């Protein structure tokens, strides 16, 4: 246990120290008055703003999280469906893979206003935007994973009379798990960012709406508070994905244990 603790200190120590140093410098710059306080609030101001605004932040975070979760869930489901179909039918792979890539070159910020025009200020356009930006990493991850499945192992299963479904279930699906989780981790981060961006353009609640409001009020301390909250939420979601990954692939932990 102590050795584990020491290991963790050695691995994460430098990063923690760097962040602490940056915060100290920031606090020093603000305290010295190099930049006016209303433009760059000090870390202490930001923490204070966070605390006084906690009820509002929480209320808005719930809305954003709701959108992110629904969008992510639909994006993953859609990505799974796409990947399975494209893997099963080569024609579909050839037909749709280029289109998939092209959709990713269109920046989300650019299509968000269109979605608002089409679907209004409710949740629909926000969820659509999140689905568009999350299903791609999931699809690509799964496709690569399916294709990385061991050909000899599939031959062996076929020689044992396995059906296509059985080969999918026993070989392709579990083989694709690592790539799937890499895709999911990216998708989780995109889902929060996507929700915030779509909220900027209009809506009745959410951290993006809160952000535009405090920006118009020139409340920079609150602005920083919400920025930190958004990145904290993204990090928490990615950590959640990591945790699920560890639970679903226990065999990957073997080397670390021994």
């Amino acid at each position, binding site marked *: 246990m102590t050795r584990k603790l020491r290991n963790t200190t050695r691995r994460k120590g430098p990063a923690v120290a760097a962040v602490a140093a940056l915060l100290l410098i920031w606090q020093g710059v603000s305290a010295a008055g190099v930049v006016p306080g209303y433009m760059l609030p000090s870390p202490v101001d930001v923490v204070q703003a966070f605390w006084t605004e906690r009820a509002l932040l929480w209320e808005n975070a719930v809305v954003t999280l709701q959108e992110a979760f629904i969008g992510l869930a639909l994006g993953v489901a859609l990505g799974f469906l796409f990947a399975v179909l494209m893997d099963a039918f080569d024609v579909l792979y050839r037909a749709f893979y280029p289109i998939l890539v092209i959709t990713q070159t269109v920046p989300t910020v650019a299509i968000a206003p269109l979605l608002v025009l089409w679907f209004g200020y409710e949740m629909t356009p926000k969820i659509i935007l999140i689905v568009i930006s999350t299903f791609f990493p999931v699809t690509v991850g799964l496709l690569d994973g399916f294709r990385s499945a061991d050909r*000899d192992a599939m031959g062996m299963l076929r020689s*044992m*009379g396995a059906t296509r479904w059985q080969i999918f279930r026993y070989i392709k699906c579990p083989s694709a*798990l690592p790539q799937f989780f890499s895709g999911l981790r990216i998708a989780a981060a995109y889902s929060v960012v996507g929700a915030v961006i779509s909220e900027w353009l209009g809506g009745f609640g959410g951290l993006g709406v809160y952000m535009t409001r405090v920006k118009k009020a020139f409340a920079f301390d609150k602005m920083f508070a919400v920025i930190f909250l958004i990145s904290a939420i993204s990090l928490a979601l990615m950590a959640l994905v990591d945790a699920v990954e560890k639970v679903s692939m226990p*065999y990957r932990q*073997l080397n670390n244990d021994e």
Partner: protein
Amino acid sequence: MEKLEVKHVSKTFEDGPVLDDISITLRKGELVCLLGVSGGGKSTLFNIISGLLEPDCGQVLLDGEDVTNKPGRISYMLQKDLLLPYRTVQDNVALPLLLRGVDKTEARRQASALFGEFGLEGTQTKYPAQLSGGMRQRAALLRTYLFSQDIALLDEPFSALDTLTKSAIHDWYLDVMEKIKLSTLFITHDIDEAILLSDRIYLLTGQPGRITDEIVIKEPKPRAKDFNLTPEFLAYKKYILERL
């Protein structure tokens, strides 16, 4: 009684013929070896026997029944153990039962019952990465056995193992084969291994591959530990070397 018969099988790929008029038989309880240089079409023949590949002509009979081009009747085991890294050893081994529709608990029970016999006791819930090379091959063998109880097709199964492990696994294999009444068709390019284990050896040579000789190893089983040092053994070896 013929367990397996391959009759006049030929196969041509795009870049030329690979197998030419192959006929071999495997009797019940026999260990027959297919000896030949690597890349001589041995693996193609195994794919045809297991039904994964269609021969241009010829037939494969299992217990007198035509199983040509019908996968799911005879499985084979390769040098690569092909244990799935994400399944525990017992779930790997039980795979053929699961494919057949046996439920999970029952499949695990049946597989687990044979762990002792295959020298795998205590590894049920481990992952393949935690086993030694020899143990992994035994697990792969147990999986093949659970698929087809009485016939095993082995494609250079032990060639990746070091000499000592190999020798131990040879003894063990002959022993377990006797106990569970297994018929084995075995591919190897290792002449010593072929003479040590086989009742009969087919020589597969040339491009395309043909069966050029059939050698009966008369030495009774179980064979003595120093069989490979006897003049008889060396005579067999000399005979085979001259014809490969």
